[in-house]
């Protein structure tokens, strides 16, 4: 026990000493809160790659208002309690703004902490509607909301002429929100019927039982609002069953691994709605970014959310540059009122009073026989 104390407390003291001083004039600190460990680790790790790259870019070009930009990342593990600790930790590090995080309920657990410390938060993957309905002045997001995506999804289903739709979600707050939103819109539409609406369990491997059950309701299209690992498996197992019903996904299925998991043959013809991929934007910013990312890490960015985190970083640094200040009130005001059509990596960015991104963001994609994501007109 004494030996233990002799080890534990010096360790604690050491780690306190090693924490960098609170404020320093030379750098502008931007926080990143993302899932670096746990089931969504691949998202968080790529978010960090994107931000590191963008920060390096700014620094090699002379910095932000003459100061260096420093990215301080913290792991939220995709768990609300750990996220609240990560957020509190970031508030003690003198960050101006925090980018993140991925899941809506994880973001929610941190919103008040940042707001009370008057730190800007720009979420990148939290699409739940209620997050911006609280009137928080410092909260923004670069991803669109579920209601917007639901609208695009429902219209696409209608446009493709599907009459009997099965909706599957995975009971995460994002997927369920999108599923209910779409269901509500489809029910109002003439001639479209939702014949199946249920949740799968994410993280499993075998969805044959679910598919067999869905098949018995004989839908002429399936809309799955969950994430790409399950979407890939569903596609693959659906094809193995010899069932060629059209399959559509939400923006969480936008990930190259989807095709790897499903295989080209099974993924062919899969539709999904998503913010446009950087490769489909001909803005110089996007092309430049993809090229640099490719060079630094050897592959194009996988996750659209990581790119949206990059956009969060870019709007914040832009606001700091334009206001020539790190005063968060000024930055927030700038983002709310003055930023107009900022050329983001995923298209033009402006924010409304609630902090939501305005404008049509979603596009429809289809997978071709080579497993490429093709933007639909």
């Amino acid at each position: 026990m004494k030996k233990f104390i002799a080890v534990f407390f010096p360790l604690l003291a050491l780690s306190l000493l090693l924490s960098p001083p609170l404020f320093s004039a030379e750098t502008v600190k931007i926080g990143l809160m993302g899932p670096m460990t746990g089931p969504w680790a691949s998202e968080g790790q790529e978010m960090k790659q994107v931000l590191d790259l963008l920060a390096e870019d700014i620094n090699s070009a002379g910095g932000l208002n003459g100061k260096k930009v420093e990215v301080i990342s913290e792991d939220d593990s995709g768990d609300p309690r750990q996220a609240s600790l990560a957020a509190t930790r970031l508030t003690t590090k003198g960050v101006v703004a925090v980018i993140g995080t991925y899941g809506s309920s994880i973001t929610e657990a941190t919103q008040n902490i940042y707001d009370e410390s008057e730190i800007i938060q720009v979420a990148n993957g939290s699409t739940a509607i209620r997050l911006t309905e609280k009137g928080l002045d410092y909260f923004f997001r670069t991803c669109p909301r579920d209601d917007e995506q639901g609208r695009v999804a429902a219209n696409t289903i209608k446009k493709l002429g599907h009459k009997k739709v099965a909706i599957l979600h995975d009971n995460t707050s994002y997927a369920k929100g999108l599923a209910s939103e779409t269901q509500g819109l489809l029910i109002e539409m003439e001639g479209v019927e939702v014949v199946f609406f249920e949740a799968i369990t994410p993280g499993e491997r075998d969805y044959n039982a679910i598919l067999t059950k869905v098949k018995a309701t004989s839908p002429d299209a399936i809309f799955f609002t969950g994430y790409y690992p399950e979407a890939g498996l569903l596609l693959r197992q659906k094809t193995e069953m010899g069932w060629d019903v059209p399959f559509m996904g939400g923006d969480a299925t936008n990930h190259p691994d989807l095709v790897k998991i499903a295989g080209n043959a099974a993924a062919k013809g899969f539709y999904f709605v998503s913010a446009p991929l950087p490769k489909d934007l001909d803005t110089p910013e996007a092309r430049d970014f993809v090229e640099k990312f490719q060079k630094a890490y050897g592959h194009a960015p996988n996750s659209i959310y990581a790119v949206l985190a990059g956009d969060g970083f870019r709007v914040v640094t832009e606001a700091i540059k334009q206001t020539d200040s790190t005063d968060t009130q000024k930055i927030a005001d700038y983002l709310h009122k003055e930023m107009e059509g900022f050329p983001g990596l995923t298209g033009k960015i402006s924010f409304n009073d609630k902090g939501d991104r305005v404008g049509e963001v979603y596009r429809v994609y289809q997978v071709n026989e080579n497993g490429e994501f093709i933007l639909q007109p």
Partner: protein
Amino acid sequence: MKDQRNLIYAGFALLLLLSPLFLNRYWVDVLNSVGLYAILGLSLNIIVGYAGMFHMGHAAFYAVGAYTTAILNTTYGVPVLWAMPLSGFLAGLFALIVARPIIHLRGDYLLIVTIGLVEIVRIALINDVFGITGGSNGIFGIDRPEIFGYRIRKPAQFFYLIWAFAAVTVYLFHRLENSRFGRALTYLREDEVAAEGSGINTAHYKLAAFVIGAIWAGMIGTVFAAKMTIVSPESFSFWESVVMFMIVILGGSGSIPGVILGAFLVIGLPELFRGFANARMLFFGAAMVFMMIFRTQGIIPPRPRKYPIDEATP
């Protein structure tokens, strides 16, 4: 020897009491988390440590408490701390109902049943059971607690709330440990058959231990809900139960100072390891194994009870 130990504990308590003065907000908040888990660990300790039942589903009772508070506060406007007694009561009632038929299961069979219990509760919460749990969104917008008109918001304020609760818990559970009830539980853990032979109604005592542990977990659920202002199913997964379980066993099953130290290690170490970035949980896993190997009985195992004879005999 005994005095020396008490001196260490007293010094530790004093250090803890003063720590918000010299720690920053983040470390105070880490201590808050440690405090919450210390109390949860102590409540689980009654079931695992004293009564010797393999229970890995404590998050189920914690969830019942937290959700009760959240619902009472957001739907009926009950002030958060006022919801505490009912949260504890419902968690206890829930434990009584579910534990009654399974209490006779031995060892690992009880373990899997309690795991099943916490999974069923989590799935029920996700699926918005009775339409009151908010599904995977959980329940948000829970008020901050108020004591005598004084609103608790900052980490340092929560620190004193949580650790005051912890202090009360330690006092009560210490009394319990040395009571007739506590001694009966210890007997039951050491030799169930002999205990039954000596006229101890084992099923009754086990059930009582279960219910007391659950009540306490439900009450701490209130504090958790108030602190986070949001409760969602992710916070009550099976893994959360595993964390509580590790706290008890690693610290020293059946020992109050052990469990508190266990909470410091299991909750504190991943925070200390943040410097290792993506490898932090790797180091944490390795640390768990090594601590267990070097202190196989837990880091501070309970002291054997002594009953000095010469004082009792004239």
